C-alpha cells in the first residue's frame, strides 16, 4: 500500500523539486557569490550583495515597494468593505455577484493592465474624450506615473480583498445587529462595535492576500509605470536581464521572499487552521 502511495507522489515530488526546490537552492547559493565577468556568477563567496541592499538607492526601492503595496492594500480595504458587506447582506444573487467580482480576476493580468493603458494613454479613450469635449487642449499625463501604478494594483487585487471579507461578513448572524440596536446602539455604532471587530479575521486575510502579491508585483509597474517607477520586482528583473548582476538579483529575490514568508508566518501563527 505504501509503495503505491510513493509511486503516486513521485512525479509531483520530482516536478516540485525541479521547479521550486532546486531553483531556490541555486538562488540561495548565488546570493553569496560574486558577479561573473560576462554575467553569471563567479567565486569567491561574499556578503557584498547583502551589504548593497542597505545602499540608500536600493533601500529606497524596497521602502517604496512597501509603501506602494501598503497604499494599494489600504485602498482595496476601503473599497472592498462596502462591496463585501452588500453582497453578504444581499437577499438574492449572492453567487452571481461574487462571480462578477471574481471573473475579471481570472482573466489575463496582462490584458487587464493593457486595458488601463488603452484608457489612460495620451491617445487613449479618456484623453480623446476630454479633448473632443474641449475640456482640455493637451492630453493629460495619466499613464506612466505612481498614480497609474497604484490604480493598477488596486484594480488587479481588489477581488482578493472582497472574497475573505465576504466570507467573514457572511458568517455573521444578522440578529447581532438587531441585538445591538435593541441595546441602544445606533447604526454607525453597531457597525463600528459589532460588524467590524467580528470581520477582523477576514480583514487580516484580505490584507495579507493583497499586500503579498502587491509587494512582489512586476507586470503592473512595468506597464503602467513605464519604467519610471522602480519597485522591487522591476529591480530583480533588471539584475537578471539588462544589468546582468545575478548575485545581487538573487539577494534581492531572497530578501523579498523573506519578507513574504515573515508576513505569512505572522498570520499563520495566529490561526489554528492552515492558510491554504
Amino acid at each position: 500500500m505504501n509503495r503505491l502511495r510513493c509511486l503516486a507522489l513521485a512525479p509531483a515530488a520530482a516536478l516540485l523539486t525541479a521547479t521550486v526546490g532546486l531553483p531556490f537552492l541555486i538562488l540561495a547559493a548565488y546570493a553569496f557569490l560574486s558577479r561573473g565577468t560576462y554575467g553569471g556568477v563567479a567565486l569567491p563567496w561574499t556578503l557584498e550583495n547583502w551589504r548593497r541592499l542597505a545602499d540608500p538607492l536600493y533601500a529606497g526601492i524596497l521602502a517604496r515597494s512597501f509603501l506602494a503595496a501598503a497604499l494599494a492594500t489600504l485602498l482595496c480595504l476601503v473599497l472592498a468593505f462596502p462591496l463585501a458587506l452588500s453582497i453578504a447582506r444581499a437577499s438574492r444573487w449572492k453567487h452571481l455577484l461574487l462571480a462578477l467580482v471574481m471573473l475579471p480576476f481570472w482573466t489575463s493580468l496582462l490584458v487587464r493592465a493593457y486595458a488601463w493603458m488603452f484608457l489612460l494613454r495620451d491617445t487613449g479613450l479618456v484623453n480623446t474624450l476630454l479633448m473632443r469635449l474641449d475640456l482640455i487642449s493637451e492630453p493629460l499625463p495619466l499613464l506612466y506615473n505612481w498614480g497609474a501604478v497604484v490604480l493598477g494594483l488596486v484594480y488587479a487585487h481588489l477581488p482578493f480583498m472582497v472574497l475573505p471579507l465576504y466570507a467573514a461578513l457572511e458568517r455573521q448572524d444578522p440578529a447581532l445587529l438587531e441585538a445591538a440596536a435593541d441595546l441602544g446602539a445606533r447604526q454607525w455604532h453597531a457597525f463600528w462595535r459589532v460588524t467590524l471587530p467580528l470581520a477582523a479575521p477576514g480583514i487580516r486575510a484580505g490584507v495579507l492576500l493583497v499586500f503579498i502579491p502587491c509587494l512582489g508585483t512586476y507586470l503592473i509597474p512595468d506597464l503602467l509605470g513605464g519604467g519610471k517607477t522602480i519597485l522591487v520586482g522591476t529591480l530583480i528583473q533588471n539584475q537578471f536581464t539588462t544589468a546582468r548582476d545575478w548575485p545581487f538579483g538573487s539577494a534581492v529575490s531572497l530578501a523579498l521572499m523573506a519578507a513574504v514568508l515573515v508576513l505569512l508566518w505572522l498570520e499563520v501563527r495566529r490561526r489554528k487552521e492552515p492558510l491554504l
Partner: protein
Amino acid sequence: MKRAAALASVALLAFLHAPLLVLAAFSFNEGRFAVWEGFSWRWYAEAARDQRLVEAAGNSLWIAAAATLISTAAGTLCAWALWKRQSRLLTLGFSLSLVTPEIVTGVSLLAFFQWLFRFGGLQLGMHTVVLAHAGFCLAFVVFVVLARLRTMDASLEEAAMDLGATEWQAFRRVTLPNLAPGVVSAALLAFAISFDDYVITSLVAGVDTETLPMALYAMARRGGSPVVNAISTAIVALLGAAILAAEGLRRKE
C-alpha cells in the same frame, strides 16, 4: 447607510468590469483611434494575417496543453496520495510555490536552467517553458483536486478493496470516475494560468521562442494598437470560457 453601500458596490463592480468591456468594444471599432467609427472585424483579420502572432498563439496553445497534461496527471496522483496521508514537506513546497512572487519564480528558474545547461549543452526554449509552467500549475491542480477529494467519502475506496479490488484498481474504478469533474476543472484552471503567463515565460523562453502574451507585451510596450485590442479580447474570451467551464464543473453535485 445600506443604500450608500449598495451604490458604492455598483460603482465598484463597474470599475472592475468597465476597462475590459470598453477594450472589447473598441476591438470591433472600424477606426484606428479611440473614437467609435462603426463595427468591423478588421483588426481580428489583421491579427490572423500576422505570421508572428499566429506562431506565438500556436506556441502558447502547445505549451499550455503540454503543461496542463503534465501538471494534471502528476497533481491528481499526488493529491490522491496526500488525501490518504499528509506530507508536511510537500504541502510546504506547494504553499511556497503559491506564495512566491512570479518574478522570483522566474529568475530562480532562469538561474537553475542556466546552471544545469552548463553540463548538458542544452538551451532555453519551449521545453524549459513547459517545465516551468507545469511546475507552477502543479500546486493549483493539487489544491483543487485535494479539495474535491476531501468532499468524497473515504469509505468508497475501502469498499472497493473490501470487494476484492487492489488499491490501484480501487483508484481507477471508483475514485477516478467520481473525481473526474474535479480533475477536468483543475486542468482547465491550469490551462488558463499557463496560457496567460508572461513574467515567468519571458525569463525562461530564451531568444527563439515567443508566446502570445510575450508578443502582446511587446506590442503593448510600444504603445499598443487596435490589433492588440483584438488579441486581448480573444484571450479574455478564451480564458473566460475555460474558467466558467471549470467553475461550472466544480459546482456540479
